[in-house]
């Protein structure tokens, strides 16, 4: 199975790298970059949602914290690299603080506190006219030039985003397979047993919250670099909910799920909406259908479907093959 996984990985990587040459048209390359950015948002929220069972409705708040910090620092004379590092540091520290507040309450309380925190960030962005430009938003003067590479062309930005997402994906994959990831899943399923075994459940959750906040902030920087513009509309409740839905639609219990969910929602919203006037209805219908037929999301659902088909085709062989893998 691992050999198959490696082959699959190589194929997917080759496809992703080939995207700009295959597609050609600048618009669709930009679309692919946007899918990557939202995929990173969904991946980061999924660290909490999928592995930790913590539902957050304030994830777009990091878009505000990291995004505004980065733009304000750049405008006030910092170079792009230090602005990015400081923005990430600021946003991650805030994530630590937000984590302390939200983790005081379990379950529904956690959702409501993250919602409130996200709305506070939104409210400040909306109201603090002198700082954030209020409703009119702020503009980032230019995209950064890492190692002197100009990121203004669509394919180059795509590769930049792809590299960042690849690093994040590797990190999150290692995270989910690590002992820490296992203890997080333990804290999700059996918190009382875990604390009896000597694990500090609160600390495990808090660290996850901060890590999710960090990767959310990285995605935010990509978002700002891509759009070169940030206004309070981008960090409202709707955005938080959309990120959450991406993870749920694709399948929160899997690594690839949030990426698939992000791709579907972004494409329906931006590409299909040119042809289908009622694209909101279409999106709603997709959700309902997925929830009815694949309650765990698209990726786990398709995997299950594939397993069933394979089993039906050669019942004896697949049983023997699947046993050692499991």
């Amino acid at each position, binding site marked *: 199975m691992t050999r198959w996984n490696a082959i699959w990985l190589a194929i997917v990587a080759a496809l992703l790298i080939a995207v700009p040459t295959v597609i050609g*048209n600048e618009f669709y390359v930009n679309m692919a970059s946007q899918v990557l950015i939202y995929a990173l948002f969904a991946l980061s929220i999924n660290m909490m949602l999928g592995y930790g069972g913590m539902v957050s409705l304030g994830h777009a708040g990091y878009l505000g914290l990291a995004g505004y910090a980065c733009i304000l620092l750049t405008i006030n004379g910092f170079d792009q690299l230090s602005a990015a590092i400081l923005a990430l540091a600021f946003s991650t520290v805030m994530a630590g603080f937000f984590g302390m507040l939200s983790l005081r309450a379990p379950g529904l309380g956690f959702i409501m506190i993250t919602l409130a925190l996200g709305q506070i960030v939104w409210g400040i962005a909306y109201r603090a006219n002198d700082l954030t430009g209020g409703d009119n938003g702020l503009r980032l003067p230019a995209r950064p030039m890492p190692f002197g590479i100009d990121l203004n062309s669509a394919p180059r930005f795509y590769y930049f985003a792809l590299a960042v997402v690849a690093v994040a994906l590797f990190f999150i994959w290692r995270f989910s397979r690590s002992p820490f990831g296992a203890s997080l899943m333990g804290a999700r399923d059996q918190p009382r047993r875990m604390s009896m075994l000597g694990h500090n459940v609160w600390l495990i959750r808090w660290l996850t919250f901060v890590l999710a906040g960090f990767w959310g902030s990285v995605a935010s920087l990509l978002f700002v670099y891509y759009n070169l513009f940030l206004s309070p509309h981008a960090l409202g409740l709707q955005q938080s909910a959309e990120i959450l839905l991406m993870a749920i639609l694709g399948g929160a219990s899997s690594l690839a799920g949030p990426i698939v969910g992000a791709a579907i929602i972004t494409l329906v919203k931006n590409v299909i909406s040119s042809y289908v006037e009622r694209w909101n209805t279409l999106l709603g219908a997709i959700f309902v259908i997925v929830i009815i037929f694949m309650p765990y999301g698209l990726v786990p659902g398709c995997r299950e479907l594939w397993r069933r088909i394979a089993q039906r085709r050669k019942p004896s062989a697949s049983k023997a093959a699947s046993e050692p893998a499991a």
Partner: protein
Amino acid sequence: MAINRRTVIKGALATGVASQAFKIPAAVAQAGPIRIGFLTVKTGPLASGGLQMEQGVTLFFKERGNKLGNRAVELHTADTGGNPAQARTKTQELVERLNVHCLIGPLAAFEALAIDDYIRSTQTPILTVAGAEDITQRKANPWVVRPSATSAQTSHPLGDYAAKDLKFKRVATFGDDFAFGHECVAGFQRTFEDNGGKVVQKLFTPLNAPDYGTYISQLKPNLDAVFTAHAGSNGFKFIKQLREYGNKTQILGGFTPVDESLLQQMGDDALGAITGNWYSAQLEFLGNKKFVEGIQRDFKVDPGVYAAETYLCCEVLEQAVKDAGGKVEDKAAFMKALKTVKVPNTIRGPVSFDELGNVVGNSYIRKVEKKGGKYVNTVIKTYADVGQFWPYKQDEFLKNPVYSRDFPPSKNLEN
């Protein structure tokens, strides 16, 4: 007829083909069609305005037989959802995938600001309807022309009128709590106070406020008028509630509150309201009469300011295309034609543009009256050739910060 699966598929195919055929008008002009990208809002809370914008554009190209000058037109409509990031993506689609020659729209100021740098970098001419002051002021974009008005452009004459002609002294202002509301109120406050009036209360209400009761009950009893800069259905709600509370104060307003598209439903509540606007469905120009008839015939509604502004954009575009000899491919020359265009007979009267791309044209003071069982905005005074800086000088005006909640400073507040 029994509907089996095959007929359904056939039907679906037929509609698909038909919609494709209608979307791309058969056009074999000499240099191919002029491609126009139209950014509007079809989903979300701003959709009612976006729908009317579409009515204006649809009517115009229907009247002209899908032609500008002697070149055919290919119109591409995109739904921004009233969301800045989506507006940007849609603009990219129009420019990069569909190679449009120019853009019309978008509706909201924050959408226009979100695509501002993209417009610059791709050098795409755009006729905007958004009010955001700075697009044609402190951060003027050389690729923008605005044939309608900035947020405060028609508030300036109204402030002047309220102070000089109506001799009002004490006014309370209301507005939606976003950039358009702030700018619209600020323009009124500035000319009103410069001419001896006092803004004694200044209240901003959240965009999605379900109820204005708590704000209305704060109003002082000894006011000459209440100025409202609420947009869309908020203006409707606000005026209705004001009257329900038994408050009979004179209503003044910016160019959004007593829009013709909502006026009939507002009924007697709106009677007597005096607003500043660059348009009224009552204007006696020949072009406007035709426009009003067309909208009433095709869409069974009265045209409001949203339908009028996109129609106006098309009128300006048509003249500029003629001036440029139909050569829209030469961006610089086409943009120059757009900025120097003079259209003597638009639905709002004669228009021309200042060097920053903003319109110079008539500004009207209108009063809601009942004529023949119908509520209308009668023009009671015309300020001719009002530009975005009127009555101030451009360089002095631009030295000040952009209009906001805090500028101009309110010195006369009493609460």
